[in-house]
């Protein structure tokens, strides 16, 4: 059943669309014959007759079991026309629609949802080419783990936020990598474009340059500061953020050190270029990390039910950090 969440605000609606990964269906009709549909309608009219209390009444005037839509002028079951168009036709119609309208279309009926669930169809390929920077599309490694055009498009909507960033950072032209400029005595952070408040979400974060004395990955609310003077583990320094400093492997929240992470003797140092996966489970209020696909244990629990953004803060001049949203992680 297509579910309408009328209470969600627009960002939630956008988030729902880009976060969801409906199952693919291979049972779609390629071509529907108009003749067959006509026959179907005739049969429907025949069935409509017995339900009439006055047999001499025209079947075309009968609407005993449903409130007809305002614009319905043709005989019963005109929904056959729109909801059962062949896939090729649906794709042709949908390719003219912007993303927000595609979300509405996905929720309208099953066959439209099936058509739009094909994540590498021309619809998503076109939007991918239109929305993502050329530097991202042409990079063979950046989005390599995302298996479809739709997932890559979704990652774009979660990438680093060019408007929510310390002034000493800038986002490279690929849109997914933040670059810290060489400014002395400054700690500089960045947040993702879109926060999350429901479900389970995974972000792949890679430190592409040296760590320096402070290199923190973590999560932040909208209100966490992204800049301060000095070289400080800013992420985790107050109650608005949680951070893992890769330099000394210490977890931080509300200014307090929560201990070494991973929780073992002499945890290994982060190697530049290793992929860290940040997983935020809003439903059980925990966050944890994987490194090169290895689970490292729960990092933070009892996280309050707030909208949370992936974030990093850095102090080393010309260091870079890449973040790619991957959606719901594969559960072992």
């Amino acid at each position: 059943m297509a579910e309408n969440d009328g209470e969600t605000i627009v960002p939630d609606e956008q988030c729902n669309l880009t976060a969801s990964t409906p199952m693919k269906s291979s049972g779609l009709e390629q071509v529907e014959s108009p003749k067959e549909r006509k026959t179907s309608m005739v049969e429907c009219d025949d069935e409509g007759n017995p339900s009439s209390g006055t047999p001499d009444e025209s079947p075309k005037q009968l609407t005993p079991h449903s409130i007809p839509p305002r614009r319905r002028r043709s005989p019963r079951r005109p929904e056959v026309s729109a909801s059962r168009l062949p896939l090729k036709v649906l794709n042709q119609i949908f390719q003219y629609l912007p993303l927000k309208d595609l979300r509405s279309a996905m929720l309208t009926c099953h066959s439209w949802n099936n058509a739009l669930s094909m994540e590498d169809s021309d619809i998503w390929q076109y939007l991918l080419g239109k929305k993502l920077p050329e530097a991202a599309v042409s990079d063979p490694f950046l989005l390599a783990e995302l298996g479809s055009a739709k997932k890559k498009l979704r990652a774009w909507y979660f990438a680093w936020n060019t408007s929510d960033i310390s002034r000493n950072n800038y986002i490279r032209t690929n849109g997914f990598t933040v670059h810290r400029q060489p400014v002395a005595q400054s700690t500089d952070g960045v947040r993702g474009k879109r926060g999350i408040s429901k479900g389970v979400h995974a972000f792949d974060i890679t430190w592409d340059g040296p760590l320096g004395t402070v290199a923190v990955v973590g999560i932040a609310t909208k209100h966490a500061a992204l800049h301060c003077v000095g070289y400080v583990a800013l992420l985790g320094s107050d109650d608005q953020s949680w951070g893992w400093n890769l330099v000394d492997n210490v977890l931080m929240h509300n200014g307090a050190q929560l201990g070494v992470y991973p929780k073992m003797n002499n945890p290994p140092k982060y190697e530049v270029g290793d992929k860290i996966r940040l997983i935020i489970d809003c439903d059980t209020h925990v966050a944890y990390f994987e490194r090169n696909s290895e689970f490292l244990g729960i990092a933070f629990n009892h996280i309050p039910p707030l909208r949370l953004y992936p974030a990093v803060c850095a102090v080393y001049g010309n260091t870079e950090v890449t973040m790619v949203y991957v959606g719901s992680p594969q559960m072992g």
Partner: protein
Amino acid sequence: MSAPVADAPAAEIVYKIISSDGVVSKMSEKAVQQSKTLSNLIENLGYTIENIETRDPIPVTNVNGKTMAKVAELCEKHKADAIPEDNMNVLKTLTIPEWDQKFLKIEDEALFDLILASNFLDIKGLMYYGCKTVSNMAKGKTTAELREIFGINTDEQDAAEETAQKAAAEVA
């Protein structure tokens, strides 16, 4: 001295097409070329100017007569036009010519029949303009509005209708 009689110009072939309901429509040779399916059918079945008069109309069993008449009208209108390019970036900025806008201002069901016919007959212009027209109907609408515009039931409505039909069948 009588003036010499000029030769008559070469006659254009006019094809007869018989639809699923037995209605016969006519399309000129140039108009038929807008439809790849019809062009291939005519070539494969060996229709020529010599035998056209003695042969049966071309059978198109997937399209009804009313829709085929509209198809023929549009193909005659565009018979001198090049077939539109199948390029996503060109299609994205497609504008529907004024004549076609008026032509496609019809009942939804007739519009969908036309689109299905253009899909089967492979008439690119009609497919693009028809789908663009439907897309314009859908633009900016919520899910509830889309259901209303296109007459699509929710799952609950479908289930209720099915229940009512079963009840009616039992009574009958």
